[in-house]
């Protein structure tokens, strides 16, 4: 399973939150691998631990409540979890980076666009002022910002949402990272802008042979942008497969339910399918399979024990007793 | 187990209550409770009459010091009045002044904020200019002039503090009203042709109560301090009434020889004001996370 073209490998990652109501196991034994040039979709309902997984990868779990309690995060063979804060600062933004959810909020309102890109380059690379300037222009051009010389001197509030998100992208790409995490990067944009942004990134990703983790709750995006999909439920990856394989042969009842809940062209509005019940509260998980209370195929064993991971087809893994 | 627990409604309610009271500043609440109980039932707790002078026992130190006696636990002042009793009696005055001022200043502030924020236009312009005017006047200077005009009495202190206190509420609450005015339920109520008065009272007012409560709690401490400042300048609650401010003021001349005269009322002010501030902070976080400008 471990192969050398894996840029990022996550093994049994556990991130817990210690609150007054108990321990919240937001990420509870997540493992996956990301190949060079691959785009992995991380899908799940809100609150299932997708974002926390991403922040765990770059070691920015909200302190002091959150703590990474176990596992390994191997970036090009180095375990990030053993690094100290100073070393991490040098890795973040340079080798692994992230685009945040809300483009309106993720740029600092009081600095110019130019400054915000510049400083990223400045802390990671030893370049002259002019070189940085040139690089910034190049990055802006890369993300298709018209007249970069002018835009560089402007403030975030002077730009549209789509443009701002592309600038976030430019910041993320400015140091040629190996891994880019896009955390719901398009959710806040409207549909046409979303499409533009996605195709731009797909293009950049292919050109630069960049590895990407695309966090989303939208299978449409997955279908368009991702090579593989990992489905998360209650802090665990319940299914992980190539995109096409997953769409065609979903193995886990949760994945099936998710796919069914997508509106399809031929479906009438009133038959729109939804998953019954609420996602479980992470601080009080049932002892067995966490999806059991909502599962239509629930068996006796599901209440008792969590299913182990099984390879249901080559490269297609799932965690469900049904596939036992 | 978990299932059983969640099945019982009272248990669930208990959890909810626990949730609401999470991180409540217990010490502050206790101090304030004692303060309020003393304020209302003070007469039953006083070892002596608060204004009763004992000329034979002038400036008795607190009981643990040499020369102190258990008769006067915290000692006596320059007229031989029992300091503990006066502090308990002072709670009544502080409570009275504090709450009445906050109530009336708050009420006036709410009315102005509602009228100004909701009706807008010329009324807003006029009311806001008046509010500005009151906000830009130097507080203590005007308070002193007002106190000099009205004369020193508890009633007049309340008038002075209300006159100078309402504008702060009006300013902050008006902002809230402007925000809430644009919310859907107000627009709906408008479409449903509710009267303006009804919209203001039934739809907008309940939504600014949180802010009002937070502001009021934080102001309680400020009112007590303001009252004590005026008393310090001889324009506060007139003697022999045991106002904490005047007690510290009385004792300030004796600070080198009889520290307890001003120390204990000073501590009473410290504890109550600190508690109201802590409680106010807590309320602010619980009730209105966005509100933090004060």
């Amino acid at each position, binding site marked *: 399973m471990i192969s050398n073209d894996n840029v990022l490998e996550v093994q049994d990652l556990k991130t817990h939150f210690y609150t007054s109501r108990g321990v919240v196991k937001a990420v509870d034994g997540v493992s996956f691998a990301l190949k060079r040039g691959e785009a992995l979709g991380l899908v799940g309902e809100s609150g299932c631990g997708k974002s926390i997984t991403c922040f765990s990868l*770059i070691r*920015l779990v909200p302190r002091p409540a959150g703590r990474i309690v176990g596992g390994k995060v191997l970036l090009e063979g180095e375990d990030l979890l053993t690094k100290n804060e100073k070393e991490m*600062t*040098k890795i*973040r*933004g*340079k080798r692994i*980076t*992230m685009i*945040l*959810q*809300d483009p309106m*909020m*993720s*740029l*600092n*309102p*009081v600095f110019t666009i130019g400054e915000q890109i510049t*400083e*990223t380059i400045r*802390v*990671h690379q030893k370049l002259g002022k002019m070189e940085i300037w040139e690089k910034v222009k190049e990055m802006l051009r890369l993300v298709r910002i018209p007249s970069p010389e002018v835009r560089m001197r402007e*403030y975030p*509030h002077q730009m549209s949402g789509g443009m701002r998100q592309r600038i*976030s992208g430019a*910041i993320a790409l400015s140091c040629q990272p190996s891994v880019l995490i896009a955390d719901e990067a398009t959710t806040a944009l409207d549909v046409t802008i979303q499409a533009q942004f996605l195709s731009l990134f797909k293009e950049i990703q292919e050109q630069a042979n960049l590895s990407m983790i695309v966090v989303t709750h939208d299978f449409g995006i997955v279908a368009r942008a991702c090579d593989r999909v990992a489905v998360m439920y209650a802090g665990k990856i319940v299914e992980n497969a190539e995109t096409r394989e997953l769409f065609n042969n979903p193995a886990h009842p949760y994945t099936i339910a998710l796919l069914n809940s997508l509106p399809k062209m031929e479906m009438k509005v009133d038959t729109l399918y939804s998953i019954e019940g609420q996602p479980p509260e992470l601080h009080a998980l049932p002892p067995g399979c966490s999806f059991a209370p909502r599962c239509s195929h629930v068996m006796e064993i599901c209440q008792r024990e969590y299913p182990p991971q099984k390879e249901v087809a080559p490269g297609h893994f799932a965690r469900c007793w049904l596939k036992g | 187990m978990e299932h059983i627990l969640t099945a019982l409604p009272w248990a669930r309610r208990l959890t909810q209550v626990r949730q609401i009271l999470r991180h409540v500043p217990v010490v502050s609440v206790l101090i304030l409770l004692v303060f309020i109980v003393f304020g209302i039932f003070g007469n039953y707790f006083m070892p002596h009459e608060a204004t009763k002078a004992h000329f034979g026992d002038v400036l008795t130190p607190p009981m643990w010091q040499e020369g102190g006696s258990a008769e006067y636990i915290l000692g006596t002042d320059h007229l031989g009045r029992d300091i503990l009793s006066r502090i308990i009696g002072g709670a009544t005055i502080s409570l009275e002044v504090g709450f009445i001022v906050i109530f009336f200043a708050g009420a006036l502030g709410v009315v102005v904020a509602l009228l100004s924020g909701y009706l807008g236009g010329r009324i807003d312009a006029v009311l806001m*200019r008046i509010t*500005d*005017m009151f906000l*830009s*006047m*130097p507080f*203590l*200077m*005007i308070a*002193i*002039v*007002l106190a*000099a*005009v009205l004369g020193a009495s508890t009633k007049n202190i309340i008038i002075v503090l209300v006159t100078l206190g309402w504008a702060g509420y009006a300013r902050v609450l008006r902002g809230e009203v402007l925000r809430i005015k644009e919310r859907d339920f107000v627009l709906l109520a408008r479409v449903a042709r509710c009267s303006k008065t009804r919209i203001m009272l039934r739809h907008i007012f309940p939504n600014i109560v949180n802010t009002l409560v937070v502001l009021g709690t934080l102001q309680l*401490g400020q009112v007590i*301090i303001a009252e004590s*400042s005026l008393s*310090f*300048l001889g324009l506060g609650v007139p003697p022999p009434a045991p106002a904490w401010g005047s007690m*510290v*003021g009385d004792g*300030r001349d004796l*600070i*080198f020889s009889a520290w307890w005269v*001003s120390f204990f009322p*000073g501590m009473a*002010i*410290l*504890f109550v*004001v*600190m508690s109201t*501030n802590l409680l106010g902070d807590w309320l602010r976080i619980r009730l209105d996370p966005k509100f*933090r*400008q004060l």
Partner: protein
Amino acid sequence: MANYILKRLWQALICLIGISVIIFFLSHLSGDPVLLMASPEATQEDIEELRRTLGLDKPLYVQYWVFISGVVQGDFGQSIKWSKPCIDVWLSRFPNTLLLGSAAMAFSLIVGILTGVLSAVKVGGWFDKFGKIFALMGQSLPVFWVGLMLILIFSVNLGWLPTSGHGSWKHLIMPAFTLGWYFTAATTRLSRSAMLDVLDSEYIKMARVKGLPEYLVIMKHAFRNALIPIITLAALNLIMLLNGTVITEVVFNWEGIGRLVVDAIFARDYPLVQCCVLIASMLFIATNLFVDILYAYIDPRIHYH
């Protein structure tokens, strides 16, 4: 921008006229300076004569007109008590107030912002707890009590600092601390909450994601954004300090505006009271305007129309 400033100036003018009316009638209601000045053996005629020389015999609205038309020409009238133009008296005291005010301000800003920022960075740590208690005490203790305790400790018992008056930097320490502590409290609390607010925001996450070192994240990205509420508060504090802080000035015998006004009020020196209150209000309004304009420089999102 120019339009905005014009509009604000117009509003300020209305505001000041209102204040002048209020303070004029209030102070004239408060009593009669003539009786305080007159000799105990003065007869009714002497008193009337004194009243005439002071111009206090005319109807109130005439006196108001005389007063306000003087103010428009920059003349605040003659102080009854000092027999000098009010503005001269005010100016003679202002440097002292400015000195004490700036010292207290510097203290409160340095200590307050530092404590607030550090508390916010390490929420719940010992520094946060200590800072909170320090801030709360500053806000909850009566100023004169603090002042007297300082005198007791540092002047009488230790003999390190002079009790009162002014002259050297040593005279400045205790009053500046007493005053500063009170203002530190609010500054600390506000810096802390503003910083917490900012530190919670997406762009701070973004700055960390970008791999910026922590000091840059806090000092550059967070602090600059937290500065806006802090500046508002600092400006308001400054005005309170410049208008004189009666109680500290009384305790430390500091010859500032605060004591001047209190004495003027007790002496019913109307012109001086009016002058000081009006100038105080003007300073307040001007500072507010200045701060609003300053915002536009700190926060590029703000535009005035």
